[in-house]
């Protein structure tokens, strides 16, 4: 596949991902006549908390994956230290930014409460995303296996 076609496909897929959100936004705004329910400050707080928490949790999961990598590389320490450092930076950044003040606190009184809430929130979001992926990919396979059977080679007839 040529590079131009690949870029075009990526653009199409990105548009396909964003299209339902934009359509919902337009329909909701049209039905209600305004867009008062979107609080940009709350949305930014959630966005920032989601980045920090998912980065830290994702790094911890990938740190676990390094064990598989180490099996084929005589257990080197350097990448392990690198990933531990990446996780530590994530944890430190989360605690520091939440501790800075009310910017990242979402109706939680302390850094500890907000950190625990962030973890819970991300776990629930992961559950929802995993179920959605299972539904969509499963439905795609179901349509493929239940579709018309194709003849690939004429001599198979």
């Amino acid at each position, binding site marked *: 596949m040529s590079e131009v076609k690949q870029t075009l*496909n990526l653009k199409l*897929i990105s548009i*396909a*991902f964003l299209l*339902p*959100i934009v359509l*919902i936004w337009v329909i*909701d705004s049209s*039905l209600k006549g305004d867009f008062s*329910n*979107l*609080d940009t400050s*709350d*949305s*930014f707080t*959630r*966005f*920032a*908390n*989601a*980045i920090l928490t*998912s*980065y*830290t949790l*994702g*790094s911890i999961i*990938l740190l676990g994956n390094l064990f598989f*990598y180490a099996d084929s590389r005589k257990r080197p320490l*350097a*990448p392990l230290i690198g*990933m531990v450092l*990446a996780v530590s930076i994530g944890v430190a950044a989360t605690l520091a930014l939440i501790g800075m003040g009310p910017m990242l606190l979402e109706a939680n009184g302390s850094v500890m409460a907000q950190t*625990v*809430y962030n973890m*819970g*929130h991300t*776990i*629930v*979001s*992961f*559950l*929802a*995303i995993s*179920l*959605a992926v*299972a*539904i*969509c*990919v*499963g*439905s*795609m*396979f*179901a*349509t*493929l*296996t*239940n*579709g018309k*059977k194709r003849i690939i080679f004429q001599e198979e007839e």
Partner: protein
Amino acid sequence: MSEILKALLLFWLPLSMIALGAWVSLSSKGNFRTNFGRITAIIGLLMVCSSPWTVPSSPSSSIGHLIGFIIGPSSLLLIGIYLLIFSGSVPVGKLPTSDRNLGIFCMTLGSVWFCLMQWGVFTPIYDGEDVNRFWLIFFPTLLLMVASLSSVLSISMLVIGEERQTESSVMRSISLISMVLIICGLTFDGKNISSDTFTTYFWLSVSDLFGILVGISLSIFIFGLVIYIYEKSIDEPKSVPPPTIDELSQASQKIANNIGGVESE
């Protein structure tokens, strides 16, 4: 025992047991370790689901409450998908064609159950008072992700596959149904959840989804970078000397001994 310690021992530790158990069970080849992983994960899941009774004072236990509520419809959806996939034309593990109807029934029942949790009487009410706040996060994220991902898969089938218009239109329909459900949530009040509450949480879930995508991409990038730097720092592997004449003749002897057979008719 302090409340924090109780929450740690009766909620967060069992929650990590689920992840650890799943990891051990999926990565092990031996029967003992696989079974050990599965049992650990099941015990963890049971303890998390019972956390509203074991640690009722901890706000985290509402996650256990939510898991207990969504386990039924989620299982129905997954069983439905499994039946639909394997009742079709698959080379291995084919189920009877009649299971297709059962699969459609399971998926419809699972979807209706989720809708009744949002608009009907099955809403997860925590502590007998408020709607479980994690349900307000779970449902909009699920619908949003189904709408966007189905749309992506629909386009991917047209772009990558050949003559996949029918399959693409099915995925487009799933995306459309999810969008209609979201619009209903934004417009109509449920028995326990108002449209205003749903609207607030829906737009927060959009921010949340983009935040998660950025965070996960960042962690994968860092992981790749760490591996790249390490691989770049190690020396080139020593070149193997070319094969000698003796080795070459031995290899050709082996090949000659293994080539041949009866010509197919």
